[in-house]
């Protein structure tokens, strides 16, 4: 788009920059297309998670008490008085910083900083998944994993539920089923998010390999920016999942 208007250039003899894919005129156009493509994809992703969030919101509206009980249990797994979800939010926000710094390093051509920031991001990402896994294990032992007949909440959870049913006047059996529904959403939402994290780690491995091969220069570093956007998005999703699943009572 930025070339002069009246340049009848034979395509066959088009002197093509090896950094630029055939269909593009120049690096600028390629970079812009890549960025816009990622943003469009992220808009898709918003709606992908949005479907689950919509279901979550509707059921929270319908089954307030069960959702309340659910987030109490989710939030109860804590280190040092702060729930695992809180720690994970901190981990992810930090990883967002390291990604932003990685992009900055790529823009400025600071090779060593770039490599270290990528490694740091991946460590944080793995850390997030590790915390999440320990949460899942805990929840498995609590017996709140739904499906295949797993769902068999621990004694103290049952007790809380019965108490809540007494207080709110909801049929205990009904409350039990709605409670299970909360866990369906909890696992689907965090599971899909974790899947995105794993994909993100794969993409960052690719970035790291490319960075170690010195493939990124201040002129061409679009992959760092574009994959960085993806990582930030996964972080954004968690920023909303955290209050929805852990905090809101």
């Amino acid at each position: 788009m930025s070339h002069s208007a009246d340049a009848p250039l034979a395509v066959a003899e088009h002197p093509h920059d090896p950094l630029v894919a055939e269909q593009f005129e120049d690096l600028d156009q390629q970079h812009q297309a890549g960025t816009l493509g990622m943003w469009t994809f992220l808009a898709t992703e918003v709606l992908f998670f949005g479907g689950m969030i919509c279901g979550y919101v509707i059921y929270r509206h319908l089954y307030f008490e069960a959702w309340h009980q659910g987030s109490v249990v989710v939030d109860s797994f804590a280190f040092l008085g702060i729930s695992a979800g809180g720690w994970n939010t901190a981990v992810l926000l930090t990883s967002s910083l390291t990604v932003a710094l990685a992009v900055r390093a790529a823009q400025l051509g600071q090779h060593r900083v770039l490599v270290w920031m990528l490694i740091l991001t991946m460590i944080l990402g793995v850390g997030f998944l590790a915390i999440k896994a320990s949460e899942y294990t805990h929840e498995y032992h609590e017996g709140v994993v739904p499906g295949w007949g797993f769902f068999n909440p621990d004694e103290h959870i049952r007790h809380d539920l019965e108490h809540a049913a007494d207080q709110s006047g909801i049929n205990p059996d009904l409350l039990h089923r709605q409670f299970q529904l909360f866990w369906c959403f909890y696992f689907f939402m965090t599971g899909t998010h974790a899947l995105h994290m794993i994909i993100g780690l794969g993409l960052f491995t690719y970035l790291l390999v490319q960075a170690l091969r010195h493939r990124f220069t201040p002129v061409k570093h679009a992959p760092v920016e574009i994959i960085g956007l993806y990582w930030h998005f996964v972080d954004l999703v968690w920023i909303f999942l955290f209050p929805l699943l852990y905090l809101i009572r």
Partner: protein
Amino acid sequence: MNETTEQHSAPHADSLAIYIVIFVLLMALLVATIAIARFDLGSLNVVAALLIAVAKALLVILFFMHVRHNPRITWAFVAAGFFWLGILVTLTLTDYVSRNRPIPDSLSQISPRNAPAAGSNLPSQGH
């Protein structure tokens, strides 16, 4: 063509300080949201938690994702995603929040009082 390439690629990197400040703000918001959740504020809890989440999201989008440097089209796509999510959630909610409301008489045409008497407007009684 080469000029344009170089012209664009002059890096417009933000200063380190901005990133650090934003990060500190994000962590402060995180601490705030966890702290607020410890107090029972009724429905304000939900509002506070979501407002803080939106604030955090805005910081990440504008600064970490550099949307503030981006052309309007990026803004449009960011907005579109959330706008469409809003359509999905709010229009679905219009159904759920208005279920089981009694229908006021004034809205109704055939009410018991002006319901047709048995067979009154019928051409015939047979079939």
